[in-house]
C-alpha cells in the first residue's frame, strides 16, 4: 500500500496526561484524511509530533515507506510536510510575498520579484486569488489563511496539515477553503484535516481517523459512514444533534437596551441606536456577519467599552455607566468572545480562574484572606459538573488546557453562579459535537431556570438551534427581531446582508 505518511504506535505524555497513547495514522497519497476527536483528544499533539514541534516518547514515523526522524520543523519541511497552525504565523505589516519568503533560502531583495511571480503562479494554479503585494493586516482572516497555504506550497510541500482551519472562518470562507482543498488533492497533495465539524469531513475527506482521549478508536471510510456514526465514535456514546428544548415561557424583562450608540476602535459609531429587550426564560440570538457591531454591543453591555448614549438596564437597574464588578453583582454572566485574552488568566491555575470574579467576597475570602479549601471545593464542583478535563485538575494552569476545555471552564464558571442574565458569545467555537451538545444543554437549562440569555454566534445553525427569538444586526443597526419559529435561514441571511425584511429599503 502506498502511504505517504505513516505514524506508528505514537505515544506522548504530558505531566499527568497521556496525550497520545499508541496512536497510528496512515495517510494515503493524494487523499484528504480527516482526524476527528473531541477537544483534548490529542489531535494537535499528534500533528505537532509530525511537524517536529514535539518529540514522541515512543513510536516511529515513515514517509513514503521510509523511516525518518523529525526533530524540528526544518526536518519536517525537508520531508515536504507543511502545516497551517490554529494561530497564523504572519507579520502584519509585511506583504504577502515578504511573509512567504521570510526565513527562506536566498537573498531577500534579489528574489523578491521572482518570488512574487512564483506566488502569483501558485495562487492562480490553486485558485487562491491572492495578490502577492498586499499587506497582511489589510486582508481578511480567510485570505491570511491562504497565505499560510501558499507558504507551504512555496516550499513544495506534498503533505499539508490543517489544524482546525475552519474555526476562524465565515461560512462562505469555509466553502471556499474546502474547494481549495479539493483542488490541492487533485494536484496530488496529501492533506491531513483536523476538524470537529462532521459536515466538513463529509464534504471533502476520503477517510477519517477517530481519536478519543488519546487513543485511536477507528479509521472509517467517510463515504460509507454517517455523521452520527462518526459522532458517536468520537464521543463514545450516541450524540443528539438537535437541541431538546421546550416552548419558552418568557417572564419579566431582564436586559433592556435602549437607543444604544457605541464607538468602535476606529472612533466611528459601531452600534447605532440599538434597542433590544431580553426577558426571563428566553434565549435571544443575535445573528450577523462578523464585524457588524456585535463585539461593540456586547462590550458596551458588559462594561468593557464606553457607551456614548443610550441606556442599559439589568433587572431595571441602570448599569449604563457602572463598573464591571457592579454589573456582575447585578446579575450579569458573560462568556467572552476571546477566551484567552479575556476569559482566563492563562498563568493562573483553574482553581484561581474559577473565582476570578468572586474571590473578593464570602465565602471565597474572609477579611481579605483567600479561603483555599472553599475555593477548592467550589472549583472541583465546576470541573465535575462541566466535565473540564486537564492533566492536573484544579492545579492545571489554564494555559495548558485544550481550547475546548478552556471554554468549558469559562462556561462552567459563568453558569454556576446562576446569573439572571447570561451573555454568551460564540460559546461553542472550536468545540466538538459532544461538548457543543453539552454546552447547548446547559444554556437551555439556564433559560428554563427562569433566566435571560443573550447569544451571539456567527454560526446560523447555532442561532437557530438555541434561540427563541432572533435579532439581526447589520452595520451596527438592529434590522429586526423575529420569532425563530416564524423565520428561516434564508430570510435571516438576507437581513444579515442588510436587506430589510420589511421591504422599506
Amino acid at each position, binding site marked *: 500500500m502506498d502511504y505517504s505518511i505513516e505514524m506508528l504506535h505514537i505515544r506522548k505524555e504530558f505531566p499527568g496526561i497521556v496525550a497520545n497513547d499508541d496512536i497510528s495514522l496512515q495517510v494515503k497519497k493524494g487523499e484528504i484524511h480527516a482526524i476527528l476527536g473531541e477537544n483534548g483528544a490529542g489531535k494537535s499533539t499528534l500533528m505537532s509530533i509530525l511537524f517536529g514541534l514535539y518529540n514522541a516518547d515512543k513510536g516511529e514515523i515513515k514517509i513514503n515507506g521510509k523511516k525518518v526522524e523529525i526533530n524540528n520543523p526544518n526536518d519536517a519541511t525537508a520531508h515536504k510536510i507543511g502545516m497551517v497552525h490554529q494561530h497564523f504565523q504572519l507579520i502584519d505589516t509585511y506583504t504577502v510575498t515578504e511573509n512567504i519568503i521570510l526565513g527562506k533560502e536566498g537573498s531577500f531583495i534579489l528574489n523578491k520579484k521572482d518570488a512574487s511571480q512564483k506566488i502569483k503562479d501558485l495562487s492562480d494554479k490553486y485558485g487562491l486569488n491572492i495578490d502577492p503585494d498586499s499587506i497582511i493586516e489589510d486582508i481578511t482572516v480567510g485570505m491570511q489563511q491562504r497565505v499560510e497555504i501558499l507558504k507551504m506550497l512555496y516550499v513544495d510541500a506534498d503533505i499539508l496539515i490543517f489544524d482546525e482551519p475552519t474555526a476562524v472562518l465565515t461560512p462562505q470562507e469555509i466553502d471556499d477553503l474546502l474547494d481549495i482543498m479539493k483542488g490541492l488533492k487533485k494536484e496530488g497533495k496529501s492533506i491531513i484535516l483536523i476538524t470537529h465539524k462532521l459536515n466538513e469531513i463529509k464534504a471533502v475527506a476520503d477517510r477519517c481517523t477517530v481519536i478519543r482521549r488519546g487513543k485511536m478508536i477507528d479509521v472509517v471510510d467517510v463515504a460509507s459512514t454517517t455523521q452520527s456514526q462518526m459522532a458517536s465514535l468520537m464521543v463514545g456514546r450516541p450524540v443528539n444533534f438537535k437541541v431538546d428544548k421546550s416552548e419558552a415561557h418568557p417572564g419579566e424583562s431582564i436586559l433592556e437596551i435602549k437607543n444604544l450608540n457605541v464607538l468602535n476602535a476606529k472612533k466611528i459609531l459601531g452600534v447605532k441606536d440599538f434597542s433590544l429587550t431580553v426577558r426571563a426564560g428566553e434565549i435571544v440570538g443575535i445573528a450577523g456577519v462578523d464585524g457588524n457591531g456585535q463585539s461593540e454591543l456586547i462590550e458596551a453591555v458588559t462594561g468593557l467599552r464606553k457607551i456614548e448614549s443610550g441606556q442599559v438596564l439589568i433587572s431595571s437597574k441602570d448599569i449604563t455607566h457602572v*463598573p464591571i464588578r457592579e454589573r456582575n453583582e447585578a446579575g450579569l454572566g458573560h462568556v467572552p468572545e476571546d477566551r484567552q485574552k*479575556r476569559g482566563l488568566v492563562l498563568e493562573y491555575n483553574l482553581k484561581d480562574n474559577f473565582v476570578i470574579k468572586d474571590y473578593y467576597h464570602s465565602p471565597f475570602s474572609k477579611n481579605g484572606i483567600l479561603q483555599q479549601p472553599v475555593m477548592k471545593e467550589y472549583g472541583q464542583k465546576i470541573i465535575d459538573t462541566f466535565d473540564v478535563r486537564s492533566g492536573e485538575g484544579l492545579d492545571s494552569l489554564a494555559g495548558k488546557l485544550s481550547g475546548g476545555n478552556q471554554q468549558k471552564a469559562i462556561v462552567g464558571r459563568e453558569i454556576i453562579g446562576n446569573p439572571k442574565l447570561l451573555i454568551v458569545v460564540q460559546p461553542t467555537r472550536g468545540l466538538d459535537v459532544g461538548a457543543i451538545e453539552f454546552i447547548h444543554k446547559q444554556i437551555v437549562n439556564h433559560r428554563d431556570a427562569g433566566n435571560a440569555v443573550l447569544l451571539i454566534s456567527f454560526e446560523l445553525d447555532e442561532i437557530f438551534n438555541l434561540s427563541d427569538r432572533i435579532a439581526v444586526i447589520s452595520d451596527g443597526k438592529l434590522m429586526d427581531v423575529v420569532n425563530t419559529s416564524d423565520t428561516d435561514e434564508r430570510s435571516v441571511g438576507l437581513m444579515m446582508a442588510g436587506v430589510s425584511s420589511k421591504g422599506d429599503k
Partner: protein
Amino acid sequence: MSAKKNKELKSNNFIIAISAVVLGLIAGAILILIIGENPFASFRYLVRGALMSVRRTGTTLAITTTLMLVGLSIAFAFKTGLFNIGASGQILAGGLAATTVAFAVDIPHVPLIFLILLTGFIAGAIWGLIPGLLKAFFNVHEVVSTIMMNWIAYWVVFYFVPAFLKGPSLETESAGLPFEKTLRVSWLTELFDGSNYINVGLIVAIIAVIVIKFIMDKTTLGFELKAVGYNRYGAEYAGIRVNRSVVLSMMIAGGLAGLAGVAYYCGYSGKIQIGILPTQGFDGIAVALLGASSPVGVVFSSFFFGILQAGKGFMSGNTLVPPEIADTIIAVIIYFTATSVMFKNFWDKRFKKINEKRNIVQKDSNSIEEDN
C-alpha cells in the same frame, strides 16, 4: 520502589539560580587566573572578608539589608507585571525624607525609628505613585517614567542636602545622624561585636519579606495584583480595577525601596551624600532576578550579593585581584539569570534523559517481576 524516587525530575528556579551562580563564579575564577592569582585562595579571602568574624558578618548583613529590601521591591513589581527600574530614586526619596525627619524631630529613639521608617516608606511610595498614575491613566511605560523619577530624586537631593542638612565640614554630604537618631541600636551592635553598620533595618527587611509573601500568596489583594500582572485584559473583564492595581503595585514597590533608603542612609551610613544615584537600585534587579522574583528567593540572593559586596575589599587587599572582579561576577550572574531559559532547557533535556532511563530500568524490573 518508593513513590518519591519515581517522581519526575524537573528543573526549577533553585537549580537555575545555582547554575547561574556557579557559572558566574567560574567566570570570575577564569579572570582571576588570567591575572595570575589562585582563584580558590581569592574566593576564600572574599568569603572570609565577609564572614570571617562576627563583626564582619554584621557589616555583611547590613549590606544585605538594603539589597533585600530593594530586591523585594523589584521582585514584587515583576510579579505584578511592572518593571521598577526606579528603585534608586525611591531609595533617595525615602532616605532623604527619613533623614530630614530624623534631624527635625526630637522624640525617644524607639518611636523615632518607627516614625522614620514610616516616613521613608511613604516618600518611596510617592516616588512610585507618580509613575503608577502615569502608567494607569496616560499609558506611559513605567521604565521611562521611573528613570525620570530617578533623576528628579538625584537633583532634589543635590540641592536639598547642602541647603538644609549641611554638615560642618563637607559640602557633598549631610551632617552625620547621631546614634540615637539612626536605625542602629546598641543591643544589635553589641551582638555583632561592635559592628557600626548593622541596624534594625535587617529585622524590617525580614518582616517585609514575610508580609509581601503573605500578601502575594494568601490575600485577595495579591490575587488581584498578580492577575493584573499576568493578564490585564482578563482582570478587567473579571471586574478588577486594573488602574487602581497598577498604581497600588507601584506604590508598594516604591515604599519598599523607600525602606531600603532608610536602612541605608539612616542605618548603614548614617548620612546622605549628594551627586550619587545609589547603585543598589540596579543591584536590586539582579537580586530579584536571581531570586526568581520570589520573596524567599530574594532573601538568599541578597545575602549572596551581600557577601560579594562586603568581601571584595578584603580579597583585593590580600591578593592582586581588583575589587571589580566581584562586580564582574555579579554581572555574569545577572547575564545568566536573565537568560535562564537556556538553563531551563538544558536541565529539562538532562532530566528527560534521566527520567527515560529510569523508566526503562523500571519497566525491566517490572517485567522480571511478571516473569516470576
